[in-house]
Each structure stands twice: as structure tokens, then as C-alpha cells.
């Protein structure tokens, strides 16, 4: 059997637990309002478009008091922590104010602590991370015309 190459993509699954029922309500309100914004005004969409190395990203609620951030991104998250913080730090400042064991805020001024928090709350991956296209980055995919435009 041929061994699959290590994908250029990586998973990130961050579990954030609300500090209190009130914080949980606030988290849900923030996320709901954020995700109701049109793409051109949604700061997450704007940031991810600019970063250009995130394939997929979504928020989900788990149980009564947890918020999940689930993404698939290219390359080394640590290497791009500065760009991530510069572009999307404000969103995390709002969210992390409501979570248990959150890092000091604003994250722009506490980048290492922010990185440490993300790492500590990332569920990672059991066994192999499957990718249907292990060699292809966001840029590679966007660079290839889709069938409809050929």
C-alpha cells in the first residue's frame, strides 16, 4: 500500500468553554450576530480571505456551554500567528473575554499567550488527518479554473 504524503493542510479544532451561563449567552449572541453579517462586513470572512491559507472555518456550539472553532488551514499555524492575530485578533478579544482560562487580552499585545491558549484547547486529530488533495493549498485551488469557467 502506498503511504499517503503528509498533507500541506492541517486541522484546528479549538474548544472554548464559557466562564458562566451569562458568558455562554453572550458568546452565543456574539457568534450569532457575527455570522449573520453579510460576507463583505463579516470580519472573520474578510480576515480569512486576506490570510489566504484557510480552506474551511466554522463555529459550532457543543452541549450547553462550549463553543467550537473548526478550521482546515495550510502550513504552520505557529509561523503565521502574527498574521492571524493582526487580522482577526479583534474577534478573539470579544470571544475570549467570555471563556474559561482565557489568555490575557488584547491578544495583539499577548501573542505568545494567545498561541499557547489555542494550542492548549486544540483537540488535534486522532490518527491520520485525511485529505483528498494532500498537495494543494488554498492558493493552488483558487489558481485552478473551476469547470464552469473553463
Amino acid at each position, binding site marked *: 500500500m502506498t503511504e499517503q504524503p503528509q498533507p*500541506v493542510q492541517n486541522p484546528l479544532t479549538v474548544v472554548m468553554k464559557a466562564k458562566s451561563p451569562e458568558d455562554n449567552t453572550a458568546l452565543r449572541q456574539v457568534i450569532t450576530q457575527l455570522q449573520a453579517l453579510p460576507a463583505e462586513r463579516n470580519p472573520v470572512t474578510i480576515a480569512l480571505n486576506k490570510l*489566504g491559507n484557510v480552506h474551511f472555518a466554522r463555529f459550532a456550539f457543543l452541549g450547553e456551554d462550549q463553543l467550537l472553532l473548526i478550521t482546515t488551514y495550510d*502550513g504552520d499555524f505557529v509561523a503565521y500567528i*502574527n*498574521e492571524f*492575530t493582526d*487580522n482577526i485578533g479583534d474577534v478573539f478579544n470579544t470571544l475570549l473575554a467570555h471563556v474559561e482560562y482565557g489568555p490575557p487580552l488584547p491578544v495583539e499585545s499577548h501573542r505568545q499567550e494567545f498561541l499557547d491558549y489555542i494550542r492548549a484547547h486544540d483537540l488535534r486529530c486522532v490518527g491520520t488527518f485525511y485529505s483528498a488533495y494532500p*498537495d494543494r*493549498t488554498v492558493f493552488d485551488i483558487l489558481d485552478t479554473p473551476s469547470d464552469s469557467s473553463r
Partner: protein
Amino acid sequence: MAAVDLADVQGFILRGYTAPVARCLGLSVRESAAASAFLTGLADGDLAVTTAAPWAEKPGCCVNLGITFPGLAALGVPPGSQASFPAEYAEGAAKRAASVGDVGVSSPDQWLAWLVDPGLHLLVWLFAQSSEALDATTAQLQQAWSAGCVELGRHDAAWLPGDVAHFGYRDGLSQPIIEDIPLAGLPDHLPPAPVGEFLLGYPSQHVGFSYPVPQPAQLGANGSFAALRVLEQDVDGFAEFVSAQASATGMPEELILAKLCGRWRNGVPLVLSPDTDTPDPPIPPDALNDFDYVGEHHDERGYHCPIGSHIRRMHPRGQRTAGGDGYLHRIVRRGIPYGPAYDPAHPRDGRARGLLGLFIGVSLRDQFEFLMAQWANDGTFAAGLGRTKDPVIGAHTDGAGTFSIPRPEGPVVLEGLSRFVTTRGGAYCFLPSVSAIRYLAGLRANL
């Protein structure tokens, strides 16, 4: 922002000296009080380090100082203060080697012995206008350090005829423009880098963030960090590769050389002159770094300057990159060749030749290491590069590297790239301010 006191900053951080000969000396501190006296001389004596203050007359020999992490302890820096320095500096170049591609023949077990000596504490650099001035200043320094330090090793370097590096390219054309600092390189119209990218204690290019200043502030502020690199160049291998690819593709050797680098060998950038190294009208010398890959000279697909070429990887400018950071991760590069000029009439002469380089920035991790790991030794940051590496400095293994030259009718792919640059040694250094040298001199002066 408070103005930078240029007289407190080591000069080579902010300006080039244009010195034809250079020497790097590695010292080990053996007697700390006497070493402190040596440092006092470097702060305030006749052998004081060259600062960034304007000079009326260029010195015959400029002197600068770097300190390794073990050097801090040797000079009496307390553990709490040592702990305030960044982790990558504390680990040092040898431990971080794999992350920048220094593996295999470039791994630390192959390095020059003095650069892996755990007793390497101080690096003293001399940049002189003549060999005589270099030797005279070396002798003065030896006298000054001899009571407190021993020399572990040295590396000499000198310009080659024609002001080129060993692969034949003009070098040193691209340096960052730094806000509020007198222009030290060729002008350009790119976003300037804030001084906090090159000096500790000022706002960085990142939102709401200044890199932490090692404590106490007298030690950390106005300092910077440098990766010292001794980079051996396989000029035979490079010339043979280019010759073979010219035969295989039918492209002229000069064009292949230009595509690999992103500039013709005389420094003319491909983006400004894709077909000839002698455009008419000629490009003025001070316009050789004034271009972008988007906008006026747009070359988003790399048809003029390949996206994977050396200078485009090392500074993607406005090109779309992962993180959206093509203008960031700037680094100050001070490099000077060592070894004899390559003579194509006498190949494989067995002589070592390469580049003695210093790569300077406020964060070794976010500047030097990022450039090597993300942009030189990987290709996922830009469209279409796959896992390829920099064709000139990349850590290729076993002739397995490839290089794509984009063309509207389809790319030409060069195959069989080897490692043309081998790391023969490295050191991560703190570049203290003059105030910091004075502070360090005071730690053990009275023991």
C-alpha cells in the same frame, strides 16, 4: 515615537559600511572582570563599537559586537534577565538548525568547530577599508581582550573583483527602508518597515505589538538580533547545473541564471527588464530595487520574474502570499564573500568559497527563521510552488529539486537542483546597544 538615538545603536543594524574586507572573531570569556574591561573599551574607549550616528569621515575599520546566549551568563547577566530573552536566541543556531534547513551536510555536526564550541560567547566583527587597517585593528583588539578572553576562531572575507558574489550576481541590492532612519539602501516605493522591526523598544509592524525588550531595559533597548552564517557555495555545481539546463531547454545560460535569481547578474530586475540585462534606456542605479510584482509592473503569474525565484521568495512584496504578508518579514542583510574568486578556466580547484553573512532583525523567529522555513525551504506560501525550495539557497537533497519558469504557453521546469549552498556554521547573537555594553561592562567590573 521617540526618535532613535543613533549614537546608541550599533551601526551595522541600520546602515551598510561598504567595506571591502571583513573579519569575524569568536571569543570565549575566561576571566570576567578582565572581559568587562574589554567591554568598557568597546563602549567608550578608542576601540568603541561603530554606531549608526552620522560620520564626517568613514572609519578605516568599523567594529561591532554580538553576544551569544551562553555569553550573557559568562558576562554575569543574572538568570532572571537571561530568561527575558527570546527562546530561539536562548536555544541558539545549532539547536534550531533543522528548522532553517541546516540538515544533512549543513547540520551542526559538520560545522566549523569554533562555531559549535559551547564556550563561544562573543562575536567581534571588523569591516575595514584595507587589509592593513583590518590587521591593525585586530591587533589592538587582541591586546584589549587578551586578559579576559581567548580567541576560538575567525573567518575572513573580502570583496571579489566586479563587486559580485561567488555565483556571479551583484548582491546586497535589496535592503529594507526603515521609517525615520536615514536612507541606507536603494530607494523604493514599498511600505517602509517600522524601526521596531530592527530595534528592540519600538512598535513593530504588527498591530498593537512591540517585541518584548529583554530586561533590564538598559540591556535590551536599542538592541537587535543577528543570525551569523558561514555559507559555502558550490560554484562548480551551480555552473554545471546551469550549463546542463541550458542544453536541455535551449534557453541561454544568462537567462536561466536570471530566472533562478529574479535579477540578471548585473542586478537588473527581471520585472523591469524581462528580456535583456542592458535595457534601453538603462535603469538608473538607484532604481534597481524600486519595483513590485503587482501594480504598474504587474507580474502576478511570474512570467517575467518566476514566483519561485530567489529574490521573489525572500521578499514577495505585493504578491499574494499566505498570511498576506509579502511586504513583511523584512531582514537586514550584511554579506561579504570569502575565498578566492571562481575561475571557470580552473574548475574544481578544491578551494572553499562562500558568503559570510549576517541576517539582522528584532526577532530571529519571525524574520530569519520565517524566511528560511516558510519562503526559502517550502513553497506552500504562494500559488503553484508546491513543496519546492529556493533554487539558489534551498536545502535540496540528492539533486531532487525542481524549479518552474512560468510562461503563458506553459512552464519550463528545471530538474535536478542540488544544494548549492551549504551551511558551514552559524550563531545566534544579541547585538547590544552602546548603553547595554556599558551595563554589561559594569556587572563584573569590581569582582
